[in-house]
């Protein structure tokens, strides 16, 4: 083929060069808010993974995080001082940085470990709904006709519930627990991905080179894997990022309502619930304040990044993302 002479030169351009040339990344990296969001996410990731590793290696005792033997109300305020000024002044010499909860468990360590749980369950939720949504959306766009109709009308039905409500309905059927909450939210988010991917895929399928590939005799899966998916990647990534924040907040919300994490789990949602129950009104603010703060910061990070990504997106694809 005549193009072959030109390809070697192209091949030599490294991955980094190609990334640098991408208008999406250039635009994204010039967005300070998005970079700030990315930094937040990295920070939380380091925190979560670090704490998990510390537990894994044995530096940190997992029992210490879950310990329930001090069932009586026994707690320490942050650094032994419940006032904000006292806390700030004694930061240097401090035993419980964020204080302890009513069971005398260290809130700092539990909050750190909560980052791991949030990322873990958030990742599974987003990954599962991305895979399912991408599959359904591509199939709907590629085959059209009744297949498209059946898939997308089903998605419409799922989309006609406010998201938390649908998750609650699923929980009502399948019961409570973090993994079941993950399952419920996967069901809630899948239609959004399906819709985005279908929209993006339809635009790709309009392109002439796809038509040419089909004319050359390419099989369905080849067109989908080689052309439709790579070209829909940007909107999918944006949607995933935005939904990551949502997933973390919704998982915590289900835990807060009592249908997610169970007693003892150092998940942010559960710590928040217990912290509010056990003392916020009595001024024991630290038990719920810190988990909530980190929850909010994580979600903010994903929202800032996702927002920046959406702005950086090729305008042609922007419509596809909610």
């Amino acid at each position: 083929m005549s193009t072959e002479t030109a390809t070697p030169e192209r091949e030599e351009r490294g991955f980094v060069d190609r990334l640098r040339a991408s208008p999406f990344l250039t635009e994204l990296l010039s967005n300070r808010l998005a970079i700030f969001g990315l930094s937040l996410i990295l920070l939380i990731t380091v925190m979560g993974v670090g704490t998990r590793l510390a537990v894994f290696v044995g530096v940190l005792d997992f029992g210490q995080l879950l310990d329930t033997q001090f069932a009586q109300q026994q707690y320490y305020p942050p650094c032994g001082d419940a006032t904000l000024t006292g806390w700030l002044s004694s930061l240097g010499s401090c035993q419980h940085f964020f204080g302890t909860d009513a069971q005398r468990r260290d809130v700092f360590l539990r909050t750190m470990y909560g980052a791991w749980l949030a990322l873990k369950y958030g990742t599974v939720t987003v990954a599962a709904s991305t895979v399912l949504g991408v599959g359904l959306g591509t199939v709907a766009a590629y085959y059209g006709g009744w297949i498209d109709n059946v898939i997308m009308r089903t998605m419409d039905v799922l989309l006609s519930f406010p998201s938390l409500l649908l998750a609650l309905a699923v929980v009502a059927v399948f019961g409570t627990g973090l993994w079941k909450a993950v399952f419920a939210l996967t069901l809630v988010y899948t239609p959004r991905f399906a819709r985005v991917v279908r929209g993006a895929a339809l635009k790709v399928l309009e392109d002439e080179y796809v038509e040419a590939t089909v004319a050359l005799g390419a099989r369905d899966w080849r067109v989908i894997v080689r052309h439709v998916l790579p070209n829909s990647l940007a909107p999918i990534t944006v949607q995933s990022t935005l939904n990551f924040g949502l997933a973390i907040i919704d998982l915590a919300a289900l835990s807060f309502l009592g249908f997610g994490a169970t007693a003892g789990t150092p998940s942010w949602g559960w710590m928040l619930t217990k912290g509010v129950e056990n003392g916020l009104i009595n001024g024991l603010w630290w038990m719920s304040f810190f988990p909530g703060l980190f929850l909010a910061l994580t979600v903010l990070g994903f929202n800032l990044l996702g927002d920046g990504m959406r702005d950086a997106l090729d305008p042609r694809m922007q419509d596809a993302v909610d």
Partner: protein
Amino acid sequence: MISKRYIFKRLLLLVPVLFGVATLVFSILHLSPGNPATVVAGQQASAEEIRQVEQRLGLNDPVWVQYGRFMLDAVQLNLGESWVIRKGEPVTSVLRWKFPITLELAVLGQIAGIMFGIPIGIVSAIKQDTITDHLSRVGALSGISIPIFWSGPLVILLFSVSLGWFPTSGRLTQRAYEGGAPQTTGALLVDSLLEGNIIMFIDAAWHLFLPAMVIGIYSMALISRMMRSSMLEVVRQDYIRTAHAKGQGRKITLLKHGLRNALIPVVTVIGIQFGSLLGGAVLTETVFNIRGIGMLLVDAITDGDYPIIQGTVLLFALVFTMVNLIVDLTYSYLDPRIEQ
């Protein structure tokens, strides 16, 4: 103008969706493990009692018969009777009195969101890329990122416990209930006004203030974001440049010509997120102990009161779908190009 054909088409599209929604709601009960009859009859019920309940609820009929019956009943707004929470009371009458409580909260939250969101969005757009803009954008994203179940308790701690400005929970001060709460619409603000009871109106508003604000932050964030981007979009249009070229000041141009057009997409956002506002009401009600439809659903799930769960979920889906339809129609009314 919006064509009758378009409205008809949209209504027709609604039929399969509502059908699917009802099917999904039907399956809530039938997919869940355990025998519903034991929930209804109670833990200590004998086998005979359980059999009677099964008979009465028609649980022994084939699934498709039950499905058909559910659909026929649902069309006639008969959603069965509560099993546990309000044992024996028709679900529709329970919802009738719970829904206005939630709706009142959501509407107030929406009003708060609009009141703050639109001006913030406009200022943000006019002062694009200044520190004001950055702050309000981060503020808006924070509003979406902060969970209601965190900000709610903190707000209670600050304004109710520490400062004592607002009540911590509930809908009315106990004393105001003397003579019974009014039962005309179910929404306290409306009812107290209808009765001419100003004291009760103030008391209800005083109780609703914090929850409405907490919900409002979320909707404010979404509205100000949309307002900003829509305003920036409009600024690039030719007619703005023309008005500007005529010698009109920038701010006047923006507010007089820009705002009207920029508001169109904001209207859709206001409508679309009203559904999630109702969802947020579930959390807010739990935080502020307001016994509306959200808390009802949470209690129903905990107690296994399936008819209530079904009714609540169905109602939310109906409201959500209807609001979306109205939004779409409004949108195509404001911008007729959309019909194509």
